[in-house]
């Protein structure tokens, strides 16, 4: 037990050396390589999961951004539309006003014209009628001689020729 036994030393050396060689080839190398590979694949998987998560987050952020942009654009469009509407309405109003004014003006003019025309016609008719009447009166007045004389006297009187 406590003495060095050459036979046991030799056997231990042989057995342990063989064990080293065999285990190296058939146990440690495959086991450690497999474990390392597995560790690497786990690490890779974790990393890619992390990456996917980040991408997902980026995508979400993108979506949010796009949504916000769309909202802003919608607001802008609505505002523009409202402005356009207001503008069109006011323009239409203005146009209608001017048109109405124009129509009013021209109608007034026309009315005036018509009035003038009517007045002139009336005047003419009145003149004609007066002449007619005067003629008729004159005819009637001057139909007898006495009367003609009287008239002449009268006119002369009024003219102070008497």
């Amino acid at each position, binding site marked *: *037990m406590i003495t060095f036994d050459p*036979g*046991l030393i030799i056997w231990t050396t042989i*057995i342990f050396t063989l064990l080293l060689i065999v*285990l190296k080839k058939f*146990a440690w190398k495959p086991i450690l390589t497999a474990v390392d590979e597995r560790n690497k694949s786990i690490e890779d998987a974790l990393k890619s999961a992390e990456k996917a998560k980040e991408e997902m987050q980026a995508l979400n952020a993108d979506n949010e951004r796009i949504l916000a942009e769309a909202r802003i654009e919608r607001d802008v469009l609505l505002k523009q539309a409202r402005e356009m509407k207001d503008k069109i309405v006011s323009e239409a109003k203005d146009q209608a006003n001017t048109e109405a004014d124009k129509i009013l003006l021209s109608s007034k003019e026309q009315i005036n014209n018509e009035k003038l025309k009517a007045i002139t016609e009336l005047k003419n008719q009145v003149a004609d009628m007066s002449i007619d009447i005067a003629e008729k009166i004159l005819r009637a007045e001057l139909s007898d001689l006495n009367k003609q004389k009287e008239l002449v006297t009268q006119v002369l009187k009024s003219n102070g020729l008497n």
Partner: protein
Amino acid sequence: MKKTVYKLIITSLLITISGVNVFAESQPEKKDGFNPTPQILHHIADSYEWHLWGNVSIPLPVILYSEGSFDVFMSSSFHHGKSKVTKGDRVYKIEHHHIVEENDKKIINLSITKNVASMILSTLILLFILGKTSRSYKRKKNAPKGLQSFLEPLILFVREDIIKSNVGPKHEKYAVFLLTVFFFILINNLLGLTPGAANVTGNISVTFVLSMFTFVIITISANKGYWKHLVKPPGTPIALLPIMIPIEIFGVFTKPFALMIRLFANITAGHIIIFSLISLIFVASNNGENVVAGWSVAPISVLFVLFIFLIEILVAFLQAYIFTLLSAVFIGLAVKEENH
């Protein structure tokens, strides 16, 4: 912090165990009645046959080299040391548990002794277990299952916490040796605890070989810095060099020596304690004369044996761990890059 606590626990355990060891060695020898010493020594010593119980033992092959020829025969030919074996003109007999030639011819004894047989057995078990584990890695790359899930943490613990953290960046090269030595010591420690088994790692020849492997690896892989430390320890005043250089050179040999003694002593001590505690029963009963005393001591003795046995299981792991750890530390010291 955690590491310090861990080391403290290990150190205190080692101290406790070595304390118990002293107690075991100082077993009083009895003149009359039952003398446990030869019994115990017989149990922990190597032998040419594998003694199981009573008169039952497995004969093992004896291989002797003498005067240019091999003599191979079974150990049963000795009839437990009672008869001599004659091969040609060579007559062998067992004297004080060793085979000698009657005419004092020089012999080299390469017998498959109990220890060698046990070592072969443990090696085969180890090959079977690790081979099976290795195959389960080849088949599929799933999570570990069964035997694999028991061994993988152990293998990775040895690789990460013992080898990687102590050897440094060049650890890959030494992983094979350190892993093998860990599992070799572990399996032999555990097998040594089974009833009737050999005391392989409690044999100084075995621990000598293992520590020599460490020593050779350290010496081969040592870099310039390591040798420079020996002849010119840095930071040492010149006046101290005559003392320091011998100490440094001495240290080269004390490292494997300590490895050898530590493993041998711890395992042997454990075996001696267990045998001693069992022997207490027979000491108390005065070898069967006082049955009552024997029976009254037996429960206490069995309880103690059970306790020590559980500690021994811990020690089996612990000593494998310590041997591997210290080997890794020594290799790490020899290969580390100088940074001062």
